[in-house]
């Protein structure tokens, strides 16, 4: 069999993160090759490199046995590589036909030559047994059909290698079946497919070969028939897990937060999470594990009232808070570190003094009796955080955007820990930051826990999750599937529950 893609020791690092480390992967022609791994395992970086969106720091790439260098997706398209992104790039007020030829080959301004193109596209469609009405407007298509348009678009541009970035994430089950049939047809017709996913069931159903990535490294490439789901899960999670350092304090008996059968749907009526119940006690860190997109983010956002509940009850320090506003919940002692600090936690164009007030506008410390902002207290508090959390900044008057990611995050964590909250929700508290900042944040979280704080921790970083948590609950497809003790958790269990193997 011919080899479509062969990479040699590809490495790529971003400040503070080694995203790909010596990745050597071989992808056979006319095969479906799945790449699995947790969020942050390095799949996306590898795909960006293969699609020419980013350049590797070292290593080489061979496409159909020729060494190539790509500096933009334009190069990769010429080489026969096409990518279908998770978020479709279609103009909804144009027809399928117009979308497919959009950006091609400079059709003359007077005459787009639609007829000529239509014939050529129909040919491609029949070659690969893909079917769609070219005259439909894209806005009238279902999600699965839109995806098919993207695939046809890429094939029409001459792609022989197709990269699909989590293609099933947006589809309903019937559409998944349809997609898989189409992919098999494509394979029969000589197309090579790279299928990125973290859903092991699907991967085992469709892929010929499976490569597992973890922490930027290629753990192994195996043939589908030679591997079990358990083995895959283990490769994804790692054989050995860290164990939490012993703690000197005891968890308390008071329930800080209690969720009783909470459920929620999104605006389209799709279920986000259902019947979630758990409690968190004082002086305890409860970790929430789960592959991203399984409802955990929405659950914690519902605790501060950003996500609305369909049913169920939330109790904070024994008091039902369902009907309280986000402001009331924050003011009563809930702190929140959102997963995206630049988008959700800070105002990049404001200085640190202003940023320290965010989320606390209404508390006495920052609001006078005349409804004015007490700037002096804000300056004092930000100076305090800068020294306690070792935030590297010229001063409190510096814009947030001027700080590095790690320093921004230390500042946010410092802000959320000030004034002794009783609950801290920390969503990916150390994602994408340097090791020094990470260690400091872990230290501060443990310290606050020992002082009575209840922490709800969401993290895709298993070292962080297990290293910090006292207990771990696992989310899968919007449900809480199990609770594990962080001291006794095995990779097999954690991986099994996270990927839906165990229920």
């Amino acid at each position, binding site marked *: 069999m011919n080899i479509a893609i062969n990479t040699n020791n590809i490495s790529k690092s971003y400040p503070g993160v080694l995203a790909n480390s010596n990745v050597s992967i071989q992808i056979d022609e006319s095969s479906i090759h799945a790449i699995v791994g947790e969020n942050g395992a390095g799949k996306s970086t590898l795909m960006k490199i293969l699609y020419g969106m980013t350049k590797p720091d070292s290593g080489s790439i061979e496409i159909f046995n020729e060494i190539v260098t790509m500096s933009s997706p334009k190069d990769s398209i010429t080489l026969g590589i096409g990518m279908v992104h998770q978020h479709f790039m279609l103009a909804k007020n144009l027809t399928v036909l117009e979308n497919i030829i959009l950006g091609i080959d400079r059709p003359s301004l007077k005459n787009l030559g639609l007829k000529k193109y239509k014939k050529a596209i129909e040919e491609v469609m029949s070659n690969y047994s893909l079917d769609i009405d070219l005259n439909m407007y894209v806005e009238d298509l279902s999600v699965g059909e839109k995806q098919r348009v993207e695939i046809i678009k890429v094939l029409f541009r001459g792609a022989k290698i197709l990269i699909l970035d989590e293609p099933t994430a947006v589809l309903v089950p019937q559409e998944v079946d349809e997609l898989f049939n189409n992919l098999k047809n494509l394979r029969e017709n000589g197309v090579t497919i790279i299928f990125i996913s973290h859903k092991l069931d699907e991967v085992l159903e469709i892929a010929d070969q499976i490569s597992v990535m973890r922490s930027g490294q290629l753990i192994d490439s195996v043939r589908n028939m030679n591997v079990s789901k358990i083995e895959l899960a283990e490769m994804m999670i790692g054989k050995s897990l860290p164990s939490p350092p012993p703690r000197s304090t005891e968890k308390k008996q008071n329930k800080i937060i209690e969720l009783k059968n909470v459920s929620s749907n999104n605006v389209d009526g799709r279920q986000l999470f259902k019947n979630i119940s758990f409690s968190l006690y004082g002086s305890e860190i409860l970790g929430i594990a789960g592959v991203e997109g399984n409802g955990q983010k929405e659950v914690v956002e519902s605790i501060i009232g950003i996500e609305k509940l369909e049913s169920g009850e939330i109790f904070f320090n024994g008091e039902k808070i369902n009907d309280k506003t*986000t402001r009331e919940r924050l003011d009563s002692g809930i702190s929140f570190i959102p997963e995206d600090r630049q988008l959700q936690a800070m105002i990049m164009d404001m200085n640190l003094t202003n940023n320290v007030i965010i989320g606390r506008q209404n508390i006495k410390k920052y609001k006078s009796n005349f409804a004015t902002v007490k700037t002096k207290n804000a300056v004092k508090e930000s100076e305090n955080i800068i020294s306690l959390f070792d935030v590297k900044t010229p001063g409190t008057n510096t814009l947030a955007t001027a700080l590095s990611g790690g320093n921004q995050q230390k500042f946010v964590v410092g802000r959320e820990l000030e004034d002794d909250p009783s609950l801290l929700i920390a969503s990916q508290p150390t994602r994408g930051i340097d090791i020094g900042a990470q260690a400091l944040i872990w230290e501060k979280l443990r310290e606050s826990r020992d002082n009575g704080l209840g922490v709800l921790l969401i993290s895709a970083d298993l070292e962080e999750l297990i290293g910090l948590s006292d207990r771990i609950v696992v989310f899968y497809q919007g449900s809480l599937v199990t609770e594990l003790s962080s001291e006794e958790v095995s990779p097999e269990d954690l991986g099994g529950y996270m990927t839906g193997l165990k229920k």
Partner: protein
Amino acid sequence: MKLRLRIASFSAPLVALSIAFGLSSLILLFIGKDPIETFRIMFEYGIKGKSIVSIINRSIPLYISAIAVAVGFKMGLFNIGVEGQYLVASLIAAFVGSQFSIITPIHILFIIIIAVASSAMWAAIAGYLKVKKGIHEVISTIMLNYIGTGLIAYGLTNVFDEAGSDYELPRTPELPESGKMPALNNLFRLEDLQDLHGFLFVAIVVGIFYYWLVWKTTLGFDLRITGANPVAAKFSGINPNRLIIVAMVTSGGFAGLVGLGPLLGYFHRFTIDFPTGLGFAGIAVALLGRNHPFGMGIGALLFAFLERSSQILDLNDVPKEIERMLQAFILLIVVVFYEIIRRFIVKQQVKDASKKVET
């Protein structure tokens, strides 16, 4: 902020001004006029005592209008409806104010309250439509401007027209003496000049109040962070819908004051010649002054100066439209330079912060 950065941020409007004058000069040259001579006569005319009083009078409504727009801008809300809001408010206030007479301060205060309240209510419609129906405020406020103009035309002819007057055109009854705002000429010893509108004081108070509201209060803080990052604002516990209504009503409230300078100081009634276009001009002034109370003051004075001083041009056979062009050039160029300066400041701060990390 460091001195260097302060100088940088002040340089933007000055540079923009020079380039705008440069471009206008080229156009003047192109049509065969001497630019230096043209600007000289404009300037000479613009600094005459009479002109200065007129410039200040003109700048009062411009300034208040800019503030009304800026309140919305600060939270990323585009109130394009100041135009309709102040006209509706002026008509209602002019009519209600003409119906009775009490001592002057109370009478004027009453007219102000009527104007502010009716304008705020008119603006609240746009806020309501945005919150409840998701209609973008630019669309709704523009539409409300048209509706307002129509209602004013109808109301002025059929409801508020002065009864028993033989004046041909529709107009509201004149305000009684107690409803007229005294001029400031005696105060500043400007005996031989035209009236300097007493509303100047209100404009100054409005400017200070706006500064306090936006930069000192918690409400202002909420407005500013919502404008800068609506997502973070939501996570910080702000209810965006409530804030949209509050901002729209506040902006509309300020807008209600726009027409009162001319109304109380000079027109003393609402007629079909009542000044229009102040709401749109306010958008330009707010942009020029970067929503800052001081900057907008300078901007209002500058635009008023250009308008006034250009009136001499017709007598000198230079097309007056050169002034409109100047205004447009200034605006366009200044917006570009503000962005350049903003990037420069961010770059400087990043540099300073990374220096700090290295040490």
